[in-house]
């Protein structure tokens, strides 16, 4: 019984990190209405940036955020501006340009294999970092400390994003664009600039997620693939564009992954996650908290 509670708690913590990874995606998906298949790769890039930052400067992993966040923001901003914006301009009347999906897949292939070429396939990790392997004892349960840090980072980031969207002028512009891009642009909002910024923010959030993973997760070129599909599942589960939904969806997935292996093989839990995903797609495509999306 105690094991299940311990697993559940660790599952929630890990799940919040999934949710953090998915948060960037839900923002991009919600505002631009496109599937960004490169999201996992962006996460991978964030992890590598954090890794090198820590390795070269020896700082605490979470201090690397100072470097990771702006670098990732810029990366995402440029990606959107150079590769995706031209398609939006060309397919102005199409509400959901499929071509963008394909372009982001190309980005995924390029990023993953470029990093394979440059960094090699070996698994890396930061052996002597202050968080690695640390456990918190809560009674008889062992709670993973790096995951706890990740949980806090997820909550804080989610709050910051929420405040940004609700309270700042730019944030309101982002929300307006996500609801109706034409109406928003008629109000004087430069929709393309909003897209760039949204993509930048989404990528920066992926960078934060990368930082939370670096203390305990292995870093290798195709690490993004593990998270890619999972993030999409979480986004659908939680509801397109919903911050709380992303975190909650992440936690659900985290708990299933954590508690599931007590009762079945790890790959069956994978099947359950897919099954849950499909159930939501059919029965409640707007997810737990999403706005009813017009089909």
């Amino acid at each position, binding site marked *: 019984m105690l094991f299940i509670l311990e697993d559940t708690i660790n599952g929630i913590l890990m799940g919040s990190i999934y949710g953090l990874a998915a948060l960037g995606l839900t923002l991009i998906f919600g505002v631009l209405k496109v599937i960004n298949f490169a999201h996992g790769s962006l996460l991978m890039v964030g992890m590598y940036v954090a890794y090198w930052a820590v390795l070269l400067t020896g700082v605490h992993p979470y201090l690397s955020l100072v470097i990771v966040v702006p670098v990732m923001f810029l990366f995402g901003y440029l990606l959107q501006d150079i590769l995706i914006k031209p398609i939006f301009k060309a397919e102005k009347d199409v509400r959901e340009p499929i071509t963008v999906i394909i*372009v982001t897949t190309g980005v995924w292939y*390029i990023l993953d294999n470029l990093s394979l070429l440059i960094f090699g396939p070996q698994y890396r990790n930061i052996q002597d970092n202050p968080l690695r392997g640390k456990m918190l004892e809560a009674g008889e349960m062992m709670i993973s400390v790096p995951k706890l840090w990740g949980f806090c980072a997820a909550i804080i980031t989610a709050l910051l994003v929420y405040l940004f969207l609700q309270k700042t002028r730019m944030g309101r512009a982002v929300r307006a664009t996500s609801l109706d891009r034409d109406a928003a642009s008629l109000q004087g909002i430069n929709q393309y600039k909003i897209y760039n910024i949204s993509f930048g923010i989404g990528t920066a959030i992926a960078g934060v997620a990368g930082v939370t993973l670096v203390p305990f997760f292995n870093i290798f070129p195709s690490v993004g693939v593990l998270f890619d599909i999972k993030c999409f599942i979480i986004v659908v589960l939680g509801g397109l564009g919903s911050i709380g939904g992303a975190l909650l969806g992440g936690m659900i997935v985290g708990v299933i992954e954590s508690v599931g292996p007590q009762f079945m093989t790890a790959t069956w839990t994978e099947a359950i996650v897919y099954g849950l995903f499909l159930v939501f797609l059919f029965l409640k495509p707007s997810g737990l908290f999403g706005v009813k999306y017009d089909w």
Partner: protein
Amino acid sequence: MNPLVYRKLPLILVGVLALGLPLVVTSPTYLHIVILLFLYAYLTTSWNLVGGFAGVLPLGHAAFVGIGAYTSTILSLQYGVSPWIGMLVGAVIACIVGVIIGLPTFKMRGAYFALATIAFAEGIRVMFENIDQLGPLQINGPRGLQIPPLKTGLASFMFAEKEPYYYIILVMLAGVLLLTWAISRSKLGYYLMAGGEEPEAAQALGVNVARAKLTAMAMSSFLTAFAGTFWAQFTLYIHPKSVMSLDISFEIAFIALIGGRGSIAGPVLGALLLRPVSDFSRIYFGDKLPGLHLIIFGVVLILVMLFQPRGLQLPLTRIYHRVMDRLFGDREAAA
């Protein structure tokens, strides 16, 4: 001479070349590459029935390849059923699965549809990886099934040399191209195009868009499963990652997109352009620069989508017609 013959001449030439290829290309390695090329051309053309004509983006077609491969293999290994019959059975099963998948997913918007097909395909793959035995059927989970090379010959769909495989896949490819051409000119083809471009208008004109898409899906999954059996008989070893992986689904889709989905020649063109790049960069750069072919793939993908989103067949066809006019235009005018 009838000017129409001039237009058809290149096609006839290609046909003759294709038939005579094994006489020229004798190295088994290169023949193997060509066979795989034709296989992918076959797969993307079958995919095109849904992804091109119906106008949606299915990204999980490898599931049908796997169903075809596993069905015929299990039937032949455990029950001694001829792979040819197993091929048909596998296709029927794949067809049913395809319709089951299509029924709920065709109602979804583009992005969600793509995700749903991925989820289905991955779900099926995960199941195959987890199951060792399903009742009397031996599936072997991640270890997969191996086909012992015992009797060779047409009846057992197994050959010692590559040449017979070449001709089989050539016939399959020609067949699926012919079918695609026939459909494009038929009521189903018109209805699919209409439903894909303006569903509301199509419905007002009597088109049951959902039913047309399901029909296309049924055909596509049926045909795709054939390729699975071929693959099994060609490589003699199948496991979930080799016949059902997401990479295969994606490659099938993207070859069609780069070549030009919705056209007849597009998918084949895409395969002709991209497969050699993939194979050769793997052969020559495999050790020193791993993954280079995927980088090239990705770059091509992006460039084509940015500059020729309808696929490369559009500009290539234009060039072809211009060349034909240059060569035979005068004679046509005189005739």
